[in-house]
């Protein structure tokens, strides 16, 4: 049963180590941290991170984002800049005791730079034995680490071309994996929002992203399930399978007792089946659409 779900994007620059001296998009990082905090506030038995990957299937829950694959200079685990101010630590869940001394030797993390509650877990990825994760799952793992979450987690990759029906079924299956499941769907909108975007400008990109954001804001799970997969692929919207997995997971959730429908919800669908939603960020400042949202059944 899903007790909470969230959507976060997966630009590598969410890892503050990768942006050098600059603090790039701090508001996006803050929104993502807030979304994960709301997810964890539901006291889940397990957090499932789902995101696009080369193949569909579970990944090692001990896996972490490989910062060195994006920034070879970070190979040694040496922070090249003071990133402590860029990170959004969880509500004091992390304690020094959860960081084995062999993983994060004190010499690597100057105490003045990184107070114990803000140990940048991703700074010392080389000490984690597990293989590096697909980007989206690595970002999800990092967000959980940053929130201080040390409970059970599952990481599930979804192949980028996976059809909607498969994603929806996977979502239902993940929702049924424990009595209280929190789902973090990690993935991005289109990458063709401007001439300087990674995929150059495509006029269809902005309306596509707006439709996704509207569906999420309205908790319109059928609309998410019905997203045009071919168009999503053409617009480089890598998050599509993750969103549809989320739609499948939430459609399996029974409505909460005492749920009060938002006024803007159309009457043609039973409002009680729609999750409470909040969109915390929806913009494309670098040509890639980033969406941060929470959806609570």
């Amino acid at each position: 049963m899903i007790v909470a779900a969230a959507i976060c994007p997966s630009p590598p620059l969410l890892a503050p180590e990768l942006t050098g001296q600059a603090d790039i998009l701090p508001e996006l990082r803050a929104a993502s941290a807030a979304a994960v905090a709301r997810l964890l506030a539901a006291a889940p038995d397990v957090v499932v991170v789902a995101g696009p990957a080369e193949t569909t299937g579970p990944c090692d829950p001990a896996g972490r984002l490989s910062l060195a694959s994006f920034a070879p200079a970070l190979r040694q685990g040496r922070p090249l800049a003071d990133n402590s101010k860029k990170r959004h630590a969880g509500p004091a869940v992390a304690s020094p005791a959860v960081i084995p001394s062999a993983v994060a030797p004190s010499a690597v993390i100057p105490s003045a730079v990184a107070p114990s509650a803000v140990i940048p877990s991703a700074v010392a990825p080389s000490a984690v034995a597990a293989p590096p994760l697909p980007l989206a799952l690595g970002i999800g793992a990092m967000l959980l680490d940053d929130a201080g979450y040390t409970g059970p987690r599952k990481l599930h990759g979804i192949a980028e071309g996976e059809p909607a029906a498969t994603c929806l079924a996977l979502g239902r299956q993940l929702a049924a994996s424990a009595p209280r499941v929190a789902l973090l769907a990690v993935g991005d909108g289109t990458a063709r929002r401007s001439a300087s975007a990674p995929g150059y400008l495509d006029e269809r990109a902005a309306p596509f992203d707006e439709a996704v954001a509207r569906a999420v804001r309205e908790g319109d799970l059928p609309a998410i399930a019905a997203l045009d997969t071919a168009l999503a692929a053409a617009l480089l919207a890598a998050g599509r399978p993750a969103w549809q997995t989320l739609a499948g997971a939430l459609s399996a959730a029974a409505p909460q007792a005492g749920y009060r429908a938002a006024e803007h919800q159309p009457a043609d669908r039973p409002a009680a089946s729609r999750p409470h939603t909040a969109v915390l960020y929806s913009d494309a400042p670098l040509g890639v659409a980033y969406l941060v949202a929470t959806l609570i059944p």
Partner: protein
Amino acid sequence: MAIVNRTPDSFYRPGLTWDESAALERVHAVIAEGADILDVGGVPAKPGPEVTVAEEIRRVVPFIERVRSAHPGLVISADTWRHESARAMCAAGADLINDTWSAWDPAIAEVAAEFGAGLVCSHVGTLTPRTRPHRPAFTDVVTDVLDRVLLLAERALKAGVDADRIVIDPAHDFGKNTWHSLEITARLSELTATGWPVLLSASHKDFVGETLGAGLDDRLAGTLAVTAVGAWLGARVFRAHDVKETRQALDMIASIKGDRPPADAVRALA
């Protein structure tokens, strides 16, 4: 290797040599400033309006013919990834094909062989021509570069390209983020150690801008720093917009290495 773009929209000083007479004047100037090679291209690397093969040829081939007749001894490089364009440019007098897009068109090596021209074997990761990198990640970027350029050099040899005319290029910024471009700069000795001559193309590129927080018009010092490191580590060809400054930096490094005597050594020798 001096850059003369026959384009209206290249990233640095767009349209500077779009006009043919301006381009020819530029050629005379860069030769006077010390260029040994002229790199002529008709299609920008960045995404933008399509430039057909016919249009590329129209932009570049008559120009190469004029440069060839004016400067018979100059090495002319054709900056193209399409074998049809490369063939026309070699027929017009180009000596080297600068295939920045890493043999996206595999027939390009045959063209180099056919004309006895040189070939640049480059690395772009998974990019197709005129697209931007999106979150490239490498277990080890230098290994990835080495694997690709050595494979292409081997293929070029098999296609019949003269072994003395093969150059390798890690291609800074192409399919790489700034960290990756810094890494291939720092470890350029791993490329020069292969024995193939290495081309370094860093002039005013985004990794210089991002590293220094410098806009397009403020990257000369960063470019020359990369040039100096590359020269020290053994790169042999330097693709440059600023020929005089690049030549001076390279002469300085050559003298530091002991490969070139100072121009005028009198100080404390009287």
